[in-house]
């Protein structure tokens, strides 16, 4: 995890600012020639103190605060929190509510994976795939908007259930949209598995073996692409996953190509599950009552976000406000892995490898190369991206 500074090496600091697409982080890669010999990460440029803020808000207000931790996977945060609070209050949301939660979880996974597919393709210089996947992603965004009224922060959950219902008209629209996306996904799969130029940037690049992924405690698609069958939806099913089990998707390769294949196969799995949930949607109530004061206790709520295991620790003190809320997002785990396995890899591969773990803030636009005579040269993230593309031309 350490970037050791020595006069013979170059340090390449990347980040933290990015004005548009994603979120800021700062990395320093120590390089010898083209090869990376050390890496560190520094976060906090968008640190908002949300864990502290939860201690000043009541249990209901916190649902809306925590949903805003992430704009891409907002629903999964609200789900993890709602399930945790329900466990503390010893209530269970009705089956229909759990099924709707799960349905939105999978729709969110589709939008997140398609967003990632576009970003990762763009970092490698494959802008056609980027534009196709983002165009097609609008289909699922429209479905989410049709269900909840919002494109992000859908606010589907309430403590004790959900606040939206799925009627037959919406179900038909979802089925139609999903079938269109399934057809498009065939095309993506074909591109990422057969296009020689694409494979040149992904096959055997950034390989993380099973043992490495295991030792570094990787989570989510990053772990599954290295053959680790770790998925909270199957390991510790929550919401409606006990009734609608998923098949855990794994690949053995461990390289970037495997990370593409795992996520695209997870899209198919999400399509299948959405059809199944719509076909067998339980009937009944949408929510149940949760008391304002939560009895003193503590609980752990784990869910599978699009990027991997999301971990919530909740401690109540008998009042209307929590004593402590701890959130560990999957990107933190995956940062730890990439900072370790980056050592020995090529700088030109870093844009795609960084994008390959689907970090929730892969972003960085300013880069300074410092050489031993202290002359520095400023690069942008775009420069690094172009450098990577030219390197493989």
């Amino acid at each position, binding site marked *: *995890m350490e970037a050791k500074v020595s006069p013979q090496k170059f340090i390449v600091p990347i980040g933290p600012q990015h004005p548009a697409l994603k979120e800021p982080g700062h990395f320093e890669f120590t390089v010898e020639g083209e090869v990376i010999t050390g890496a560190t990460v520094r976060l906090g440029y968008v640190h908002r103190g949300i864990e502290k803020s939860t201690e000043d808000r009541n249990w209901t207000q916190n649902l809306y605060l925590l949903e805003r931790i992430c704009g891409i996977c907002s629903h999964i945060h609200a789900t993890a929190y709602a399930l945790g609070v329900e466990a503390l209050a010893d209530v269970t949301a009705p089956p229909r509510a759990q099924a709707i939660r799960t349905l939105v979880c999978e729709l969110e996974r589709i939008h997140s994976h398609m967003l990632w597919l576009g970003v990762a393709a763009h970092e490698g210089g494959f802008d056609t795939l980027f534009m196709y996947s983002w165009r097609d992603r609008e289909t699922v965004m429209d479905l989410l908007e049709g269900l909840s009224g919002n494109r992000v922060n859908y606010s589907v959950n309430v403590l004790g259930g959900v606040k939206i219902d799925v009627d037959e008209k919406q179900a038909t629209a979802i089925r139609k949209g999903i079938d269109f996306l399934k057809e498009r996904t065939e095309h993506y799969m074909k591109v990422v598995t057969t296009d020689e130029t694409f494979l040149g940037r992904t096959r055997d690049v950034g390989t993380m073996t099973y043992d490495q992924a295991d030792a570094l405690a990787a989570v989510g698609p990053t772990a599954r692409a290295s053959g680790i069958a770790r998925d909270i939806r199957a390991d510790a099913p929550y919401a409606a996953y006990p009734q609608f089990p998923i098949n855990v998707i794994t690949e053995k390769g461990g390289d970037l190509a495997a990370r593409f294949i795992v996520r695209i196969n997870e899209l198919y799995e999400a399509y299948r599950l959405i059809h199944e949930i719509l076909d067998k949607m339980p009937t009944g109530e949408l929510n149940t009552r949760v008391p304002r004061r939560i009895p003193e206790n503590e609980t752990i709520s784990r869910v599978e976000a699009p990027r991997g295991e999301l971990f919530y620790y909740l401690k109540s003190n008998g009042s209307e406000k929590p004593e402590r809320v701890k959130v560990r997002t999957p990107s933190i785990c995956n940062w730890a892995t990439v900072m370790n396995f980056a050592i020995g890899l090529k700088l030109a591969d870093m844009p795609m490898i960084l994008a390959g773990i689907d970090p929730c803030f892969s972003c960085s636009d300013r880069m300074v190369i410092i050489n031993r005579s202290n002359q520095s040269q400023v690069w942008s993230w775009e420069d690094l991206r172009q450098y990577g593309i030219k390197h493989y031309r």
Partner: protein
Amino acid sequence: MDITEALQTAQDLLNQWTSGMNTPDLSRLDVLVAPKDLKPALRILQKAHWGYLSAITGIDHPPVPASPDGKQPAKEGSLEMLYHFCEGAAITTLRVSVPYTLPVIPSICEILPYATLYEREANELFGVTFRGAPNTDHFVLPDDWPDGIYPLRKSFTGFDKPQQSPTDRGLPSP
């Protein structure tokens, strides 16, 4: 391994390093560990390949003054670090408690290198020192965050006066 079996294995492994255990619910095992026993306990879990470190949660227990009638003695402030290990649905939590007066816990990065991000976070937010940690740089707080102020302690309720603007810190105005 099903949950009960996994938790039983963890219980057997950690028996000699703990001062108390309980199972708050069906999928969880809480193990009280003294700071000096943390590393040996971790090594045992790692050797048996029991789960992975999923998170480190910090909890602040502020000091409680003695009750006026003298029935409740004063309680010293302490910090508790929860090391959550997950194996399938089973969760084993090693609970390490240290007093405000000596908030030092051995770093576990030697055994689990990926723990460094969690330790850096707990270090700056709670003021726990991880002895032997490879990196103690700021992780989420700003570079100019004042020393000795730990925002996730209950005693922190914000700054009295507004923080300096970017211009005051010598940065160009927007």
